């Protein structure tokens, strides 16, 4: 039985004093936060419940997912002061099963980043739990960091658009699970890119994922892309595994850790030339196009930051509020998306990228006719030092997502799991399954956890 389930049984039966447990966890989070900066907000008055499938389970929520009455900024100064009037569907479902919301975790503003260094103006950059001179990864860095450091029963609710769950999970040495697109409702998620955003889970152990996924997944009429049908997490058959060969440069020690795990499962080498060659460009064009329209609603009028309106024209006012409150990467991605949607460029960029996305989805579909699971490194290397990140260009930042953009474009379930260490820093392996085959993925992750020594 998972540690999480045992904890719930103890809370249900009164063996654990839930009130003290929650208070102690909140205090611990405050201590950790002073040193590592994983939370934008900690809920000091977190309630507790003795009833439900997740009674007394402590949950941190990425700051781009709405929690009723708790400041939800998506990591940007633009939304400072915004306290949603409703819970995101996933959060509401967790609360209704007795989970306790601990707070809102740090992220790159609107999810725009690979290291959690693109935080909003005035926000703290979280530090890696293994080495404070290094990044947590992004964009769900706060969720990954607190999952690694928590010495209480804890689950992080996070979100991935192009790798924002897998990347920080890899860098912080935890399990990061991203379900099929549409499996978990996006209602209440502050959108980065609608066709790519997925809410998922981070935990310390694989067994703790299923009980949470069962609660947060399921059809939601408030999300037009929500999947119909029940989720089946129980797979008992054999698994055929393929390891994806890539042309990207991977650190030799990282590669060795993944190859060792692949050998344990008798993985065949397979190739994905389209995802490999065109994935980054297709992903960044589609995601920034969608982001540039999504962020148009942030205009300083109805919520979030605003300004002096008197005597100003429509354009002057909106441009002023947006220019003062968006950080540099937010501006860069809004501009990139605006450019790629402009008359004369739309077909060459957005439509072409969307067609390549079709070919990449097909590339995965064909491989899943033969294989149940595909694996690759999650990231090309371990978490970089802040001093190295400062020297990188935006394009070099984007190239770090070379392994994670493929499964995100295809909307397939995927996860990162620790498979080794390089000089004291964790190495993650990414595993992917076909649409709706979360059960196969969980079975494989469980085998990796049990059979691959770190």
């Amino acid at each position, binding site marked *: 039985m998972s540690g999480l389930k045992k904890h719930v049984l103890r809370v249900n039966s009164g063996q654990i004093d839930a009130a003290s447990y929650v208070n102690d966890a909140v205090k611990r989070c405050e201590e950790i936060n002073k040193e590592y900066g994983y939370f934008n907000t900690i809920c000091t008055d977190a309630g507790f419940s003795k009833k439900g499938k997740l009674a007394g389970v402590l949950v941190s929520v990425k700051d781009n997912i709405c929690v009723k009455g708790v400041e939800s900024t998506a990591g940007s100064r633009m939304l400072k002061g915004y306290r949603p009037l409703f819970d995101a569907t996933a959060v509401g479902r967790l609360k209704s099963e007795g989970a306790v919301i601990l707070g809102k975790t740090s992220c790159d503003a609107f999810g725009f980043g690979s290291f959690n260094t693109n935080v909003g103006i005035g926000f703290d950059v979280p530090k890696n739990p293994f080495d404070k001179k290094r990044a947590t990864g992004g964009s769900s860095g706060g969720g990954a960091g607190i999952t690694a450091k928590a010495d209480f029963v804890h689950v992080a609710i996070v979100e991935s658009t192009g790798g924002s769950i897998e990347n920080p999970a890899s860098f912080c040495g935890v399990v990061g699970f991203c379900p*099929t697109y549409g499996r978990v409702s996006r209602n209440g998620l502050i959108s980065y890119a609608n066709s790519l955003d997925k809410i998922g889970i981070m935990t310390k152990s694989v067994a703790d994922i299923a009980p949470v996924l069962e609660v947060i997944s399921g059809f939601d009429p408030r999300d037009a892309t929500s999947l119909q049908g029940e989720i089946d997490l129980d797979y008992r058959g054999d698994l055929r595994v393929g390891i994806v060969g890539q042309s990207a440069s991977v650190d030799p020690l990282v590669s060795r850790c993944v190859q060792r795990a692949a050998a344990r499962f008798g993985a065949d080498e397979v190739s994905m030339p389209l995802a490999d060659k065109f994935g980054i460009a297709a992903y960044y064009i589609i995601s920034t196009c969608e982001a540039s329209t999504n962020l148009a609603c942030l205009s300083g*009028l109805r919520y979030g930051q605003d300004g002096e309106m008197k005597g100003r024209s429509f354009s002057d006012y909106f441009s002023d509020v947006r*220019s003062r409150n968006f950080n540099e990467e937010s501006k860069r991605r809004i*501009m990139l998306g605006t450019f790629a949607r402009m008359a004369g460029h739309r077909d060459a960029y957005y439509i072409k990228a969307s067609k390549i996305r079709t*070919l990449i989805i097909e590339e995965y579909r064909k491989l899943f006719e033969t294989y149940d699971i595909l694996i690759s490194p999650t990231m090309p290397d371990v978490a970089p030092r802040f001093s190295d990140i400062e020297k990188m260009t935006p394009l070099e930042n984007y190239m770090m997502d070379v392994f994670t953009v493929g499964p995100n474009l295809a*909307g397939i379930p995927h996860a990162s799991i620790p498979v080794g260490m390089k000089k004291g820093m964790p190495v993650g392996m990414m595993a992917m399954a076909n649409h709706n085959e979360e059960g196969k993925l969980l079975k494989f992750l469980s085998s990796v956890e049990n059979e691959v020594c770190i």
Partner: protein
Amino acid sequence: MKVPIKSISELAKLNLSEPELKRFSKDFDEILTAFRVLDRINVDGVRPSFRPVEQRNPLREDKVEKSLRQEEALLFTDHKENGFFIGPKTVE
């Protein structure tokens, strides 16, 4: 291709300083050069995917549902009057 950074910023409703314009101009050159990789693939006859999973157009019954009350919708702004949002002047 010379990227018209200034006009993109105007479309995107962003006022950029001179250093920002220079920086973004350089970044865009590098990024769009890398994106030219897309020119190497022929996608004639391929349908674009606007989402990763095939889904039918979800429709709901055409009836009024519960939504935010007017005072709730206005809770987070100072720009309001008589139950309405106040916006900047749109006609000069």
